[in-house]
């Protein structure tokens, strides 16, 4: 399994899937038919690619679930990424509108090492792990996705937050000229999210650069995003350009838009009613029957202690 830093010149290559591992044979065949057979062969057989960097094999992780993976095509063609359009199929269609090169992340606030970082500076490519996580959207559907990244803690520790840093705020790229979704004030752009510092440092929280053994497709939040698997999907902010260590609870995009619907914490919680969707059940994409939604999306053992003593109906 290979993962490479993408170059603009080989954008199309990153659409090629590893068919053996991910049972994406059909998609693969279609792509071969589309004339990409040569590139795929180069990746799989020779282990050599003309452009870009091979970063070795991501390690597997005890945090991974062994549930059946959602097909990659579903995970990359059913997205909530309003910057690229408001309908589920828009982000994959408009993916090219997100320009990921050059890309830097500004690090600010209460830390010893603020500054401008390249993705590789934050994500040590020799420490990449694969984490197969459940993803639960607030809209009551879910997927199982193999992400590639490093614990966010690994990156944050390098930045050396000071004791005043009680929260971490994240910001998505702001580029209304290119991003079609940002031309209307559907949300208060740029998209912002935040975590309490202990949530950010939790080993489950992943600073993510890939999925399904490949570089993140644009519609899934390239080139760098976080994944917080026990929270509703919108907390896992995409295409991050700014990380700020702050003292007070930072504003978050959906909470600002509709405060009584989306709380700061937004932990997956079947007991907390949402005005739009009952959160008791969820549809795993590809399944007919709905499943019971699990507390903290099934990660209660790992994260419940973060919220001990808190009224989760109040801090929803």
């Amino acid at each position, binding site marked *: 399994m290979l993962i490479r830093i993408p170059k603009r010149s080989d954008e199309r290559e990153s659409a090629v899937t590893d068919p053996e591992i991910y049972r994406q044979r059909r998609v693969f065949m279609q792509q071969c038919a589309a004339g990409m057979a040569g590139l795929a062969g180069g990746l799989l057989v020779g282990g050599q690619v003309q452009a870009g960097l091979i970063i070795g094999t991501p390690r597997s992780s005890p945090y991974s679930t062994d549930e059946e993976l959602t097909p990659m095509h579903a995970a990359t063609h*059913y997205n909530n990424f309003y910057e690229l359009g408001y309908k589920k199929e828009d982000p994959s269609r408009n993916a090219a509108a997100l320009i990921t090169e050059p890309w830097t992340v500004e690090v600010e606030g209460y830390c010893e090492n603020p500054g401008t970082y390249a993705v590789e500076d934050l994500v040590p490519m020799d420490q990449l792990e694969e984490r197969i996580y459940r993803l639960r959207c607030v809209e009551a*559907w879910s997927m199982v996705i193999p992400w590639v990244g490093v614990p966010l803690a690994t990156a944050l520790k390098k930045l050396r937050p000071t004791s005043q840093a009680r929260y971490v705020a994240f910001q998505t790229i702001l580029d209304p000229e290119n991003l079609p979704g940002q031309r*209307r004030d559907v949300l208060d752009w740029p998209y912002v999210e935040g975590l309490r510092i202990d949530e950010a440092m939790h080993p489950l929280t992943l600073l993510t650069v890939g999925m399904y053994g490949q570089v993140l497709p644009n519609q899934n939040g390239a080139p760098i995003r976080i994944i917080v698997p026990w929270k509703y999907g919108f907390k896992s902010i995409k295409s991050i350009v700014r990380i700020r260590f702050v003292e007070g609870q930072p504003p978050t995009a959906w909470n600002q838009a*509709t405060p009584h619907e989306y709380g700061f914490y937004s932990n997956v919680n079947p007991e907390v009613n949402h005005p*739009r969707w009952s959160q008791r059940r969820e549809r795993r*994409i590809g399944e007919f029957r709905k499943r019971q939604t699990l507390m903290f999306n099934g990660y209660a053992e790992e994260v419940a202690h973060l919220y001990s003593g808190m009224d989760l109906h109040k801090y929803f």
Partner: protein
Amino acid sequence: MHTPTAAGWVKPALFLLCLVPAIDLAHGAWTNTLGVNPLETLTRSTGTWTLRFLLLTLLITPLIRVMRTPALLRYRRMLGLFAFFYASIHLGTYLWFDKFFDWQEIWLDIQDRLFITAGVTAFLLLVPLALTSTRRAQRALGNAWNRLHRLIYVATTAGLLHYFWLVKADYLEPIIYASIFAALMLARIRKPSTVSVSRVS
């Protein structure tokens, strides 16, 4: 244009045309081409078509007035019944695929979720209209029929509220539909100039 001979084939043709969205969805379901979340596609698409058919039904009266073609009236019942047809499938997809006929959950949903309350209200308002759509009912009810069928205004309003309340952030489409509804309602207000002069108000 609407000579009796024309009407002979126009009605069946219109009937088939109204069925196209349903056939399209059935075909998509059969060939599994309704996207990543096909059950959601079914619910959304039938909801949208319900609203469109309600608006098409409401379009007939102003069209008759503008085009001076009273013959159009004969298509109104069909359009209204198609609205009810799509509303029934829409409701059915919710009851089955969303709730799997868990009536307790459904009852909670109706109480907890405003958009469901509005949707159910809209549907319930359409039921008596569908039931009294026959010529016989029309004759039996006389003037009351007209008054009863004004419920379509309320049902459409409830359907639009349902739409506004279910949207997360992008209100563009409900705004477009609501504007069309507003225009159709405004068109019902006769301008004084078109009313014969002797009328009193």
